[in-house]
């Protein structure tokens, strides 16, 4: 039974976590035995999930939870899809982590092992939960365990602040989700998803539930304007954890929103889709623009995650829009695009984050301004990372491109919508998606180029060593997944079809095209990555052979041309800040910039520019100030004077008596 398979994997994770506590400080045991075992359990989970995709939904009720509401778990195709993503990604990350964790990183290794596996297990159970209570318990456990992972290196004030912000936002989001379930159960008092699904809500209640879900899951998924925690928390965590946070945990937000919008609520209203689309696009644009100006490699990736999640949410919005107008095949297309992007983002973002981990360990440096030229010292890491970079940039023939392709395809169908205004918006939206994708390319060139290419910007980088075998194996696994997702979209569609069919009542066409991705028909659009790759490879190989056959292979190595400048140093290369400069200029209104410019007569000229999120200043800081002011006001009640306290009691008594006597 697939469900047994998955539950035993979860149980294995929990046991491994407990074993970790038992071996609290024995690093070798924890790293080289427990983490790989966790990876194996992840594979088991993925296998179970893949199996489940071919089976009808299965349920189980555990004798835990509230007396009236024991934990219900259900494995259907939607859960199975996300579990597959979780298992496949976690396997790679766990293997990487086996080589990653070192001594003396704040938290003892055994405790990290517990938190890590608890995190994995709670994510799996979130995906399985079939009642509101189980869902909320797992959801918050997930937040909590990941919070402890984020602050693994808790001695840095910055990391503690990030962790605080993270847990606060997670908790506020969770409250919203809780209320969403409260609305969904429609006064029945029964919180099983079966019952929620059976309720017929009016448009107002349904919209309220949807909005609460958007707030709750949006807070987890980094949707504007609830994204502020994301670029703080993801970089703060140890790299394998960042990989899981960005790669997998954000997907639970996608899962939740899909579950609520398409499963628990039946027919979306059109403006839900429009809202989600708008929010998704805004976050995508904001994310990518901020990613382009970052100078910290992990922050850059975190913002890039925000961008990708924005795209996924936009896809969901479009799917909801189509579903609202009962255009089921189109809805299936958009939903597939979103799911596909979720899967490919999981693989490439995990890969990139673990790569930053490898770089971090080799160089002890996170700032892009101090890296460079690592491809010569860490070829393994560099070449595998290149794969992730290209996928993240949305370039063919890798996974990121397929999902963006599907998304753009679904936009092409949007003019069929029976709503003139929306039709008009479509080109703008499609244009923005294209812009975001192109900017992602810009960002990724910056990411890869500044870290791995060029000359080392610091002396010590020459001492960098390539990652160990565990790390390489984990990265290879993730890179392989990127490649698979890119090259075999038709096969992946078989999986996503199993998901979309029950949710929107339609699926994409896969019959007869094993090597081609043909969402509707051959005349409309098609994409064949294998063919594409073969074509490109043939061209490249032919060129290479021809050139080698026809011409000599003489070669001499010389210093690079200095353009007439006698002392060219590595510091003259374009920096990460420099790479961000055009973006800062073009998208100026997005940023809140603080510049420090040297004057012409400075003896030690200094240039500094810092870019911050304007939302902090327009939304969060005023909010915090308002609470502070209110708290100050409330604090005045407690002046220390006993006569005043007695007066309160007296007045309260009088007031209550007046109410009573009424």
């Amino acid at each position, binding site marked *: 039974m697939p469900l047994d398979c998955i539950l035993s994997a979860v149980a294995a994770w929990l046991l491994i976590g407990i074993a970790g506590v038992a071996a609290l400080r024995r690093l070798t045991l924890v790293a080289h035995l427990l983490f790989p075992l966790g990876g194996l359990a992840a594979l088991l989970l993925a296998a179970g999930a893949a199996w489940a995709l071919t089976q009808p939904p299965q349920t189980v009720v555990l004798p835990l939870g509230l007396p009236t509401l024991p934990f219900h778990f259900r494995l259907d195709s939607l859960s199975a899809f996300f579990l597959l993503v979780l298992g496949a990604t976690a396997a790679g990350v766990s293997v990487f982590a086996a080589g990653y964790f070192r001594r003396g990183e704040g938290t003892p290794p055994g405790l990290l092992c517990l938190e890590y596996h608890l995190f994995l297990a709670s994510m799996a159970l979130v995906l399985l939960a079939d009642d509101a209570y189980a869902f909320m318990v797992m959801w918050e456990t997930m937040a909590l365990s990941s919070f402890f992972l984020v602050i693994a290196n808790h001695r840095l004030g910055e990391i503690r602040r990030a962790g605080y912000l993270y847990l606060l936002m997670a908790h506020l989001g969770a409250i919203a989700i809780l209320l969403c379930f409260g609305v969904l159960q429609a006064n029945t008092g029964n919180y099983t998803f079966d019952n929620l699904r059976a309720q017929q809500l009016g448009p107002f209640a349904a919209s309220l539930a949807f909005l609460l879900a958007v707030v709750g899951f949006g807070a987890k998924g980094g949707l504007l304007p609830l994204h502020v925690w994301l670029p703080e928390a993801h970089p703060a965590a140890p790299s394998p954890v960042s990989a899981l946070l960005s790669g997998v945990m954000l997907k639970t937000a996608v899962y939740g929103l899909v579950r609520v919008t398409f499963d628990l609520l039946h027919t979306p209203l059109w403006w839900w889709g429009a809202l989600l689309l708008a929010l998704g696009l805004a976050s995508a644009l904001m994310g990518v623009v901020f990613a382009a100006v970052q100078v910290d490699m992990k922050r850059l990736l975190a913002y890039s995650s925000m961008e990708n999640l924005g795209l996924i949410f936009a896809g969901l919005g479009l799917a909801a829009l189509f579903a609202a107008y009962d255009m089921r095949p189109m809805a299936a297309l958009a939903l597939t695009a979103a799911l596909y992007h979720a899967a490919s983002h999981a693989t490439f973002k995990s890969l990139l984050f673990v790569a930053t981990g490898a770089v971090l360990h080799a160089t002890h440096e996170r700032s892009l301004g101090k890296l460079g*030229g690592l*491809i*010569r010292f860490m070829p393994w890491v560099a070449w595998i990372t*290149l794969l992730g970079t*290209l996928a993240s940039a*949305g370039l*063919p023939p890798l996974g990121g*491109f397929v999902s963006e*392709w599907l998304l*753009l395809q679904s936009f092409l169908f949007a*003019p069929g919508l029976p709503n003139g205004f929306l039709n*008009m918006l479509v*080109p703008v939206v*499609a*244009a923005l998606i*294209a812009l975001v*994708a*192109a*900017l992602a*390319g*810009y960002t*990724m*060139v910056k990411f890869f*180029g*500044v870290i791995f*290419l*060029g*000359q080392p910007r610091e002396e010590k980088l020459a001492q960098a060593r390539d990652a160990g075998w565990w790390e390489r194996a984990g990265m290879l696994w993730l890179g392989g997944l990127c490649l698979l997702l890119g090259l075999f979209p038709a096969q992946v569609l078989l999986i996503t079809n199993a998901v979309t069919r029950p949710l929107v009542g339609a699926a994409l066409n896969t019959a007869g095209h094993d090597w081609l991705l043909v969402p509707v028909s*051959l005349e409309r*659009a*098609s*994409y*064949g990555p294998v*063919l*594409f790759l073969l*074509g*490109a490879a043939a*061209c490249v190989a032919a*060129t*290479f052979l021809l*050139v080698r056959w026809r*011409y000599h292979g*003489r*070669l*001499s*190595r*010389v210093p*690079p*041309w200095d*353009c007439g*400048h006698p002392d*060219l140093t590595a510091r*003259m*290369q*374009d920096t990460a800040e*420099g*790479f961000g400069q*055009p973006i800062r*200029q*073009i998208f100026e209104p997005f940023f809140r910039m603080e510049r420090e410019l040297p004057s012409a007569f400075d003896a030690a000229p200094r240039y500094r520019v810092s870019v911050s999120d304007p939302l902090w200043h327009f939304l969060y800081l005023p909010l915090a100030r308002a609470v502070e002011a209110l708290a100050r006001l409330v604090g005045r009640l407690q002046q220390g004077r006993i006569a005043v306290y007695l007066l309160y009691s007296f007045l309260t008594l009088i007031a209550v008596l007046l109410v009573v006597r009424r």
Partner: protein
Amino acid sequence: MNAPGLFSQLLEVLIALALAPLLTGWVNQCRAWLLNKSAPPLTQPYRKLHKLFHKELVLAEHASSLYRAVPYLVFGCMALACAIIPTLSTDLPLSPAADAVALVGLFALARVFQSLAAMDVGTAFGTLGARREMLIGFLAEPALLMVLFSASLLSRSTSLTTLVDLFAHRELAIYPSLAFAGVAFTLVSLAENARIPVDNPATHLELTMVHEALLLEYSGRHLALLEWAASLKLFAYSCAGLALFFPWGIADARTPQAMLLALPLLAAKLTLGGALLALLETASAKMRIFRVPEFLGSAFLLAVIGMLVNILLGV
């Protein structure tokens, strides 16, 4: 996969490879004429390629293997691009593998590789060029995509062959959306092919160069391949423009013999197009790099307006 299809596919690639330097030479010649200079011969690009292939390869001492792979990759990408754009016939077996979106992706892939290679040597100009190239790219790419989308909205397809098929066999009609798209396409092509007013292919003035900065460290056969790839790119863009806006004469699967007519027609169209390009280039002045976003922004805007017009007017 049928024999005529395979034949037309091969023919297309070969013609592209052969004719691309010629087109570059023709544009340069026209430009020289317009500038009242004595023109280089039409075959100058071929000579240059020949010379470069025979030269010794001089590599920067710490260039990585990525740096050495990139010329082949870029060349392969451009050849593939030429293969999937219908120039002579719409009966192309490679066509289902890549549609309009994939074409844009392909160009982007080549650009990313080229920029990465430029960063690899680690000189100031290489990285500067990479940054500028990516800047132009991220603005031009969505604009190009929007242009293609305008056409796709008319044909309800992103498949290039279907698109061209449809346009080649339609009644002569005026499509205002395509007019906008055409202007946008021209602007994008200028930028993408490193032409004035965005870039000047004829200069190595360090502070203004973009495309040349990317190639600064390349030499020998690598440079030859990259130069050839640049020609191929110009050729591909020209053919794409022709296929979208002036598709008449391209043969379809039913009439392979029409290719006999298609070839001279293509040559004529390209001649005219090349001359026009030269005219455009000489008529405008190179702009500052900071003005490029505005330039490409307007292209982007035009393309979006084209799509809007399409949706509002239904044509």
